[in-house]
């Protein structure tokens, strides 16, 4: 993002923008490049592989249809994340999702995930401790309010800069930081709790 801002100031944005628009035109390459990232974001937000897949496909379709609206003032990854964020929000609001969320158990999902988690070089006892810690963080992140969870995932899983998160979510950087502080405080509290 900072590099992009420098390019804007140097008046060299146009070639960069043209390259990004060309990238948008080729939907197959676009999917191949960003699919895993968008799917991961959707999966962790929704915790439903089928719905995450649907959101991912919809994200690329919308991006292709709206490619003329892409102004090139942010990276393609940020722009796609913004589209995905809106789609995830819509999916969460849907009644069907609310119903399935009510009947499903996040502990089961986290347990299954922790079992698959590879921990090379760790003893069985240490591995168990790590899995317990993971379950606590998993539950704490799952219990976060919508925006705090989104900001947490984008910063610590997708490793986006604060300014990129602000662009993707349509928030001020200060608001993003505030959400992150609250999310981290909740995660810390979750980790300190005894199950």
């Amino acid at each position: 993002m900072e590099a992009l801002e420098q390019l804007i100031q140097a008046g060299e944005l146009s070639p960069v923008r043209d390259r990004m628009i060309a990238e948008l035109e080729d939907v197959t390459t676009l999917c191949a490049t960003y699919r895993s990232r968008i799917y991961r974001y959707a999966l962790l937000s929704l915790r439903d592989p089928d719905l995450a897949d649907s959101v991912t496909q919809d994200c690329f379709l919308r991006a292709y249809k709206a490619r003329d609206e892409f102004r090139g003032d942010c990276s393609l990854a940020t722009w796609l994340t913004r589209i995905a964020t809106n789609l995830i929000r819509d999916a969460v609001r849907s009644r069907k999702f609310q119903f399935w969320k009510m009947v499903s158990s996040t502990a089961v999902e986290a347990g299954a995930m922790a079992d698959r988690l590879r921990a090379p070089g760790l003893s069985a006892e240490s591995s168990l401790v790590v899995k317990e810690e993971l379950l606590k963080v998993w539950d704490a992140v799952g219990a976060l309010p919508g925006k705090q969870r989104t900001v947490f995932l984008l910063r610590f899983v997708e490793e986006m800069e604060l300014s990129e998160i602000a662009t993707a979510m349509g928030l001020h950087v200060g608001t993003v930081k505030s959400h992150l502080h609250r999310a981290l405080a909740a995660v810390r509290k979750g980790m300190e709790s005894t199950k």
Partner: protein
Amino acid sequence: MKTSHLTTWEQEEYIINRRAPQLLRHLAECAECRAAVARLEHGVSIFRHAAVEWSAQSLATRPESWPTVSRKRLPVHALRWAFAAVVPLLLLVLALRPFHLSSPRPAQPAAAISDDALLEQVDEQLSVAVPSSMESLTHLVSADSGSNPGTAAYTRGSKPIVQTN
């Protein structure tokens, strides 16, 4: 010599954005704060690791289905060729347009004559005293009437047809 430990907010600030030099200085000196930050960082780190792993495994089981796009754009070079083909045609049409405008227009068809004009024409024909088929007789009458109005009433060529004594 440090006087106090980092607050939880400062520890979070370090994890969120590691650029603050005063936090780095404190963490370099304070083992207790360093341990607290490391615990939180470790929690975030194992979550990230598990999330990436879970997502990759989940994605691997799914077929690669790209969204189908029905609408295709014309490539830019095709549009350029179309433009290059249309422009000469347009110029030709514009060049020929003055000739087309200056050429005489065809006469209006009879049907196009208005009713008023037609009625006026009929009135003119009716107002004539002598029909057109008998106009030559009127010439004869007018020629002889000056000298001897009773001698020649009608002539064919130079020969009198009717003579009176």
